[in-house]
C-alpha cells in the first residue's frame, strides 16, 4: 500500500518584513513560472514521488497573525525522505522560499535544513485523497496502459463483441497489465462504496450472521444429543458441564458432530472472503468446480444455518410455555430441514440425487420425532453456556458498535490520540463488565442499555447546549453581501483554467476576537469539525468521492499556528465555479467555513450558509490567495481518468471469465490526454 504524506511547511515571516514582502512575492512568482524548468525543482519532480506541489504566501494581517511562506507537497512515502531530498538537492529553492523566514538556518548544513523543515511541517488537520493507494508511478503507468489500450482498440477495430474485443486486448497487452493490484486496493475496489448507511447495513448483516452462527451451533449440539440418544446412549447427566463432557467422551459420534459443527460453519463463514481462488493453487476445472460450490454454499449457508438454529433452539426456548408448542415447532423445523435438504441437493447435484435425499431426510426426521418426541434436557450449566454464547454474540456486536461510536466521538472531541488511547480502556471496561455478569445475559443487556442510554442522553444534552451557543453566536453575526474586487479576481484567475486541473489556496479568518469566549468556541468547534472531516475522509470517503464530489485529487484543511486563520488547499478538476458549486451539495462544508468570517450566515452550524450559492462563491473568491507556483505530476488526468485507468488495469489483470465485459470496454477511450509538452506550453503562458 502506498503511503501518502500531506506536507505543509509553513515558514513564519518576521514582522518587520515591510516592503520585502512584495519583492519576495515577485521572486516566488518568477520561481513558480520555472516550475518545470528550474533544475533543482526538476530533480524533485524526477523522484516521481510528488503528486502535487505548490507554494504561496499567506499575507501578514495586523491584529490577526504574521505572514507565512508555505510549501504544499503531496508526497509518496515518508516525509523524512522529502526533507532529505530538499535539504540535499534543492538548497537554492529552499533558500528562495524560506530564507526570509524566522529560524531559517541560513548558514546551516543539511541537518539543520532538515530540522527546519521537520519543525515547520504542519501537515494537515483534515486531509482528503481522491485517488488513494496509488503512487505517482502507478498513476503514470496506468495512464500509459490506457493509451496503449486505446491504440490497440483502434487496431482491433471493434468488429467483434465486446467480450471478444476485451479478451483480444488482454492477449495483446500481456506485459502492460503489470502486477495485479495490491491487496488493499483490491479489497477496497471490491467493497461497495462507503457511506454510513452501507456500513450500518454491513454491520447489521454481520450481526445477523453471528446470531445465525450461534443458533446453528446450538441447534447442531441439540441434534447431536438427539442422535446419540437414539443410538442407545444414556441420557447425559444434567448436573454439570464436567459430566456432559464425560458423556461426550463416552459417545464419540455425538462428540464428532458437536466438534464438526462449529468447524463446518466456521468454514462456511470464511469462504465468502476467498473471492477468487488463486490461479496458482488449482487448475481451471478445479477452480470452476470450487467456484460453483462456493457460490452454492454461500447462498445457502445462512439460510440453512438459520433453519437448523430455529429447529434446534426454538423448541427448547418456547417449549417452556407448553410441550405442545415444542412439538409443533419441532414439526415445523422438520419440514424446513426437509425443504432445505431438498433444495440444496437439487440446486447443487440435480434432480436425481435430490429426489433420493429428500425423502430420506423426511424419513429421518419423522423417525427422530416419533422415537424421541421429548426435547432433550440440558444441564442448567449448558443452558447458561448457550445463553452466554448468545449474549456474547449479540452483546459483543452491541459493545463493538458502542466502542466505534465512542471512538468517533472522542476522536472528534479530543483528537485522534485520545481516541486511540480511550478506546482500549473502554473495551477493557466492557470485558470486565461482561466477566462479572456473563452468567446472566439479561442483566448484562440491561447494563449495556443503561450505559448506552446515559451516553446518548449526555451527548444529546451537550449537543443541545452547544447548538444553542452556536445559534446565539450566529444570530449576532450579520450576513456579508456578495461583492467582488476585480483586481484581486484578476490576480487569482490569471492562474486558472490553463489545464483541466486547478489549484486553490484559501485563507479565511476564524470568527471572534482573540481571547474571547466566542473565539474559543469557534476554534474548538472548528477543530472538532475538522477531526470529523478527517475521520470521514478516512473511514467513508476513501473511494474517490468526498460526499459525492468526484473532482478532488488532494485537499486539506489546516488551522494556521496563529489560531486565527484557516487554510484550505485543493488540487481539483474542472473550474472554480463548478467545484464550489459541488460544495453546495455537501452539508459538512458549512460546518467548517461557517466558523470563519464573511461566510454566508449558517443556521445551526450545518444548514443555510453553503446553499446561498452566489454569496458562498463570492466568499470563496474573497478568501482565495494567489498560487505563486504549482506543479502537478499528471495535469492531463481527472480523478475519474485515474480511476478509470486503474479499473482498466484491474480488469485486464483478471481471469478472462470474470472480466466485466459490457460497459468497461466502451469506456476505455477516456480523456485523450494532453501531451506533457502541451501541458507545459499551457502552463508557461501563466
Amino acid at each position: 500500500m502506498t503511503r501518502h504524506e500531506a506536507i505543509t511547511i509553513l515558514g513564519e515571516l518576521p514582522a518587520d518584513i515591510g516592503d520585502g514582502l512584495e519583492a519576495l512575492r515577485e521572486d516566488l512568482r518568477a520561481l513558480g513560472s520555472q516550475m518545470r524548468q528550474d533544475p533543482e525543482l526538476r530533480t524533485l519532480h524526477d523522484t516521481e514521488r510528488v503528486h502535487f506541489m505548490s507554494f504561496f504566501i499567506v499575507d501578514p494581517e495586523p491584529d490577526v497573525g504574521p505572514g507565512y511562506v508555505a510549501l504544499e507537497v503531496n508526497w509518496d512515502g515518508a516525509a523524512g525522505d522529502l526533507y532529505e531530498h530538499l535539504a540535499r538537492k534543492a538548497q537554492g529553492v529552499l533558500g528562495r522560499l524560506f530564507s526570509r523566514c524566522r529560524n531559517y538556518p541560513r548558514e546551516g548544513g543539511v541537518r539543520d535544513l532538515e530540522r527546519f523543515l521537520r519543525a515547520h511541517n504542519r501537515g494537515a488537520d483534515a486531509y482528503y485523497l481522491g485517488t488513494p493507494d496509488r503512487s505517482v508511478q502507478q498513476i503514470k503507468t496506468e495512464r500509459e496502459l490506457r493509451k496503449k489500450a486505446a491504440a490497440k482498440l483502434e487496431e482491433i477495430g471493434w468488429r467483434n463483441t465486446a467480450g471478444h474485443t476485451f479478451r483480444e486486448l488482454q492477449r495483446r497487452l500481456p506485459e502492460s497489465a503489470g502486477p495485479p493490484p495490491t491487496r488493499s486496493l483490491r479489497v477496497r475496489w471490491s467493497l461497495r462504496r462507503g457511506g454510513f448507511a452501507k456500513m450500518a447495513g454491513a454491520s447489521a448483516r454481520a450481526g445477523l450472521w453471528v446470531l445465525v452462527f450461534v443458533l446453528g451451533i446450538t441447534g447442531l449440539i441439540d441434534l447431536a444429543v438427539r442422535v446419540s440418544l437414539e443410538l442407545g446412549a444414556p441420557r447425559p447427566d444434567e448436573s454439570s458441564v464436567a459430566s456432559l463432557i464425560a458423556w461426550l467422551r463416552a459417545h464419540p459420534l455425538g462428540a464428532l458432530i458437536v466438534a464438526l459443527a462449529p468447524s463446518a460453519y466456521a468454514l462456511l463463514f470464511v469462504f465468502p472472503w476467498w473471492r477468487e481462488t488463486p490461479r496458482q493453487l488449482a487448475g481451471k476445472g478445479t477452480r470452476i468446480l470450487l467456484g460453483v460450490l462456493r457460490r452454492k454454499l454461500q447462498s445457502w449457508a445462512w439460510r440453512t444455518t438459520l433453519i437448523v438454529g430455529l429447529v434446534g433452539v426454538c423448541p427448547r426456548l418456547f417449549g417452556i410455555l407448553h410441550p405442545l408448542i415444542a412439538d409443533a415447532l419441532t414439526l415445523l423445523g422438520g419440514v424446513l430441514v426437509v425443504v432445505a435438504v431438498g433444495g440444496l441437493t437439487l440446486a447443487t447435484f440435480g434432480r436425481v440425487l435430490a429426489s433420493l435425499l429428500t425423502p430420506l431426510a423426511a424419513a429421518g426426521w419423522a423417525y427422530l420425532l416419533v422415537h424421541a418426541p421429548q426435547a432433550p434436557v440440558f444441564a442448567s450449566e449448558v443452558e447458561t453456556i448457550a445463553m452466554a454464547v448468545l449474549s456474547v454474540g449479540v452483546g459483543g456486536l452491541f459493545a463493538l458498535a458502542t466502542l466505534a461510536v465512542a471512538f468517533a466521538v472522542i476522536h472528534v472531541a479530543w483528537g485522534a490520540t485520545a481516541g486511540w488511547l480511550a478506546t482500549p480502556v473502554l473495551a477493557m471496561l466492557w470485558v470486565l463488565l461482561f466477566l462479572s455478569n456473563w452468567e446472566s445475559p439479561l442483566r448484562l443487556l440491561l447494563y449495556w442499555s443503561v450505559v448506552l442510554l446515559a451516553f446518548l442522553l449526555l451527548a444529546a444534552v451537550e449537543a443541545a447546549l452547544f447548538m444553542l451557543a452556536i445559534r446565539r453566536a450566529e444570530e449576532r453575526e450579520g450576513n456579508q453581501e456578495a461583492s467582488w474586487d476585480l483586481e484581486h479576481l484578476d490576480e487569482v484567475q490569471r492562474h486558472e483554467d490553463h489545464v483541466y486541473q486547478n489549484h486553490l489556496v484559501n485563507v479565511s479568518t476564524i470568527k471572534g476576537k482573540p481571547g474571547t469566549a466566542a473565539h474559543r468556541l469557534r476554534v474548538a468547534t472548528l477543530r472538532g469539525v475538522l477531526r470529523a472531516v478527517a475521520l470521514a475522509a478516512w473511514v467513508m470517503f476513501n473511494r474517490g468521492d468526498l460526499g459525492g464530489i468526484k473532482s478532488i485529487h488532494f485537499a486539506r484543511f489546516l488551522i494556521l499556528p496563529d489560531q486565527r486563520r484557516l487554510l484550505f488547499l485543493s488540487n481539483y478538476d474542472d473550474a472554480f465555479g463548478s467545484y464550489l458549486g459541488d460544495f453546495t451539495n455537501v452539508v459538512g462544508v458549512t460546518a467548517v467555513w461557517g466558523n470563519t468570517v464573511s461566510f454566508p450566515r449558517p443556521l445551526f452550524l450545518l444548514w443555510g450558509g453553503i446553499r446561498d450559492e452566489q454569496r458562498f462563491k463570492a466568499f470563496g473568491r474573497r478568501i482565495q490567495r494567489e498560487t505563486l507556483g504549482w506543479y502537478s505530476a499528471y495535469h492531463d488526468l481527472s480523478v475519474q481518468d485515474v480511476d478509470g485507468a486503474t479499473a482498466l488495469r484491474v480488469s485486464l489483470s483478471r481471469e478472462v471469465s470474470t472480466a466485466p465485459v459490457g460497459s468497461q470496454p466502451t469506456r476505455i477511450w477516456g480523456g485523450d490526454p494532453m501531451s506533457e509538452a502541451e501541458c507545459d506550453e499551457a502552463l508557461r503562458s501563466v
Partner: protein
Amino acid sequence: MPLPEPHDIQRLILRGYRERPVTSYLLMRVTDAAAARTWIGRLAEATAEANRLADEDARQLDAHLARAPALIGTAHPAWRREDNDRVRGLRLMLAFTHRGLERLGLPAQVLETFIPEFRQGMTAPHRSRVLGDVGSEAPENWRWGSDDSPVDMLCAVFAGSHGELESTRLDATLGLRGAGLEVFERIGARLSFTEPFGFADGLSQPRIEGAGTARVAPMTRWDNSLPAGEFLLGHRNAYEQLPVSPYALQEPPGPGVLPRVPGQRDRWDFGRNGSFIAMRQLSQDVEGFRRFTEGQARRDLGDRAGGASEQTLRDAEERVGARMVGRWRSGTPLELAPEWDDPTHRTENDFAYAKEDREGARCPIGAHVRRSNPRDSRTDEAIGVTPEVAMERVNHHRILRRSRVYPAKPGEDGETGIVFLAYNTNLERQFEFVQQSWSPNAHVDALPDARDPMLPGAEGADNTMTVQRQTLATRMRGLSEFVKMRGGAYFFMPGLRALAHLAGIS
C-alpha cells in the same frame, strides 16, 4: 404563482416574437450620453404609457399602439393579443454591456454591484479560456465585441416584414439620427425553427415558473420548469435565494422610480426584472458539415459504400449528423429513435438518459444535446445521486435561448449562422458552466472527445467524436471546425423601470 410585475419585464425573455419573424440586431456605441439617454427615455416612456393605458382601457391601448412606430415589448398580459393580432409597429429589446452602462453615465457605485462576469466582460483573458475562445476563435479575430470593436448597447428590433428593417427606413422610424448612438454593426436575422445545418432547434427550453407560457404538455420523465430567479433578477432562484442584483445606494429621483431591495431600507434595486444575456454570433459552415457527414457515411458503410444506393448513403449521412447532434433533423431525439428517424416524436422533449442509456448506446454521451443538457445522465446511485437528484443538479445550469438565424433572407449570399442569445441570472453558474464544464469536457463520463462537435473549437486539432453503441464504440475522426465565432458580448437587459431610471440620470 404568476410573475408579479409583467409590465416591468422586457418581453423577449418570456416570449420570442413569433409574430414578428424578421429581426435586426443593432450593435451600437454611445457617442453622446445625454442624447442617448433621451432616446432611451422616450422609448421607455412610450412603453410605460402603453402599459398604463392597457391597465385602464384596451381600446385606448389600440389607439396608442397604432400611433407608436416602435415600442419596447413588455410582458404585460394585454399585449399578448398581439400574438394573434394584426402586427403593427416594431418591438424592441434593449440591453447594455458594462461599458455601455458606464458610458451612459450609470454611477460607479451601481456599476460595482454587478456580478463580476458581467463587469469583466466576455473577452477578459481568463474568460476566453473558460469559453474556449482561444486560438483561431480568440476575440482579436472576432468581427465585433473584442477590445478593438467594443459594443455598448444592443437594440434588437423585431418586425413583421423585411421592408421595415431596411436600414435608412429603420433609422428614421427609430429616430436614431442625432440620438447619440452609432450603429456599427447590423445583423439581419430571421425566426427559424431549424438552424442552418438543418436541425430543428429550440426544442428544449426551460419553462419559467409563473411565466404562464406552458404550452407544452407536462413532463413525466424529467422536470423542465425552473424558478423565475434563474432567468430574472429579483426573483427566487433554484437555491431559493435572490440572485445578486445591482442596486443604487441613493434614492433615484424622477420617473419609473426603482423598487426597494427587499429587506433593505436604503437600497434601490436596479436589477429587478432584468437579466443577463450571453450573445454570440456563430457562423456555420454548412457545406463543410455536409461534406463531413457524407465522408463519414462512406467510412461507416466501409466496403458497402461502393455499391450502396443513393438512399442508403443518404440514410447513413443522416445518421452521422443525428449522432453528432443527438436529435434527427426533424427534432426527434435519438434517445427515442436511435436507428431511424421517427417523426411522431418530432417535438418530443419528455425523455431522460439514466435508466436506459447510461453508456450512450442510444444517444452518444458526447452528442450536442446531451452535452449541453445531460438531464439525468450523471446519476450515480452509489454516492446517493438518484436520477431525480442528478436532474435537480443539472437544472442549476440551464439557460434560456432566444436565438435567430442569419442572414435575414434564406439563400442570401454570404455566410450563414446563428445569433445565439442566452438569458440567465448567474453567468458563471449557467452559461459559462455549460460552455466550460459540459461542452468541451473530455474528463468525465469517460468522454474521449475534447469538445462538442457543434461548437467552435481550436483549428487544426484532431477533433473526434465517439459513438458508443450497445457493445462496441466507433469513433469519427477529422471533424473540422464547422462553427466559428464572429462576435459576442455579455449584455444586461434591464427592466422597464431600470431603463427609465437609466434615462433619467442627470
